[in-house]
């Protein structure tokens, strides 16, 4: 019998401004080197669904960590903190990038780190993934799940908190990008995804987009009416294939065999 196990726990990372923030971390047990993945949570907050994503990635052979981007709006339950963050104007891009960078350093500092780093984000986290892959160093694979606000719009105006639309940084994208989108989504709309794709093509970037009919925003979220089982199952295979391709090294193939 083969042994499988994981460790999943709350940890802290030193994020933006040197702030110590909480994070949820899960990794496969054992000394073998594994790639790391930063999970950037969605606008609704650092919720149980996000923790399940972290554990899922660990089950598939990755050390995964999700920093709590609303940590500074505590104390309270995750939704109370999300409500405070919303009332204060939402996430600040520079702060999120600092927290993501701190999480990358956390992954790199582990003795079992293979050295490969991936990022995945959902909703606002998808937008942050594109930002991170354009502004931070050392990311080997980036996955944007239905990130709205890549382009400036009425819903996502340029502001002090979000001064640069990610599409304006396309030339600086330094990692292969996987995009997962539902064609019924309004943010990003299919037209916005088209524009993002055009920008990536013009800039000669490595990317692949998968767009799903019959699915809208947040279609991976099993606990919401938005969940679309068939589309989510297929999209997850795309995510894991992408990470296997870009987070493997000659000595360390990424992705544990799941039987």
């Amino acid at each position, binding site marked *: 019998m083969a042994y499988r196990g994981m460790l999943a726990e709350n940890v802290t990372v030193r994020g933006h401004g040197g702030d110590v923030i909480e994070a949820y971390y899960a990794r496969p047990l054992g000394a073998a080197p594994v790639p790391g993945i930063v999970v950037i949570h969605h606008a609704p907050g650092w919720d149980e669904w996000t923790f399940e994503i972290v554990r899922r990635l660990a089950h598939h052979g990755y050390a995964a960590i999700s920093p709590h981007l609303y940590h500074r709006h505590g104390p309270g339950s995750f939704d*109370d903190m999300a*409500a405070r963050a919303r*009332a204060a*104007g939402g996430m600040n891009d520079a702060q999120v990038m600092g927290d993501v960078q701190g999480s990358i350093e956390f992954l790199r500092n582990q003795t079992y780190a293979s050295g490969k780093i991936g990022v995945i984000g959902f909703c606002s986290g998808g937008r942050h993934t594109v930002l991170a892959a354009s502004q931070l160093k050392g990311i080997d694979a980036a996955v944007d799940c239905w990130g709205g606000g890549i382009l400036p719009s009425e819903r996502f105006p340029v502001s002090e908190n979000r001064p640069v639309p990610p599409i304006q940084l396309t030339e600086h994208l330094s990692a292969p990008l996987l995009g997962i989108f539902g064609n019924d989504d309004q*943010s990003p709309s299919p037209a916005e995804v088209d524009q993002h794709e055009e920008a990536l093509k013009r800039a000669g970037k490595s990317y692949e987009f998968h767009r799903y009919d019959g699915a809208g925003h947040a279609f991976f979220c099993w606990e919401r009416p938005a969940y679309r089982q068939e589309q989510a199952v297929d999209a997850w295979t795309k995510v894991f294939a992408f990470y296997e391709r870009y987070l493997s090294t000659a000595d360390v193939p990424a992705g544990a065999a799941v039987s």
Partner: protein
Amino acid sequence: MCTYITEKASIFGSAKGPEGWFRVDTANVYFDHPFHAPLDHSLNIDFVNEAAGSPTRVAVEISAESARDLVEKILAALAAGEASHTAGESPAAG
């Protein structure tokens, strides 16, 4: 979709949360994904005391249709209630 679009109403009054009554000065109103209501989008209202740092809140998530009906009922209750209380306070009332 998720946005940070929020309407803020300055309000005067009190709300009752899990730890009892507290003063409120703000209602944050937004149409977005709910946390609990079985809806894709809901009209959400957070009653808070921002001056005190919003230590707690009374949160409501209702459908768009419910919210529109609620607006009508609020206005109707105000109209009827203010009229009856004004009539009761009138020295001319028998």
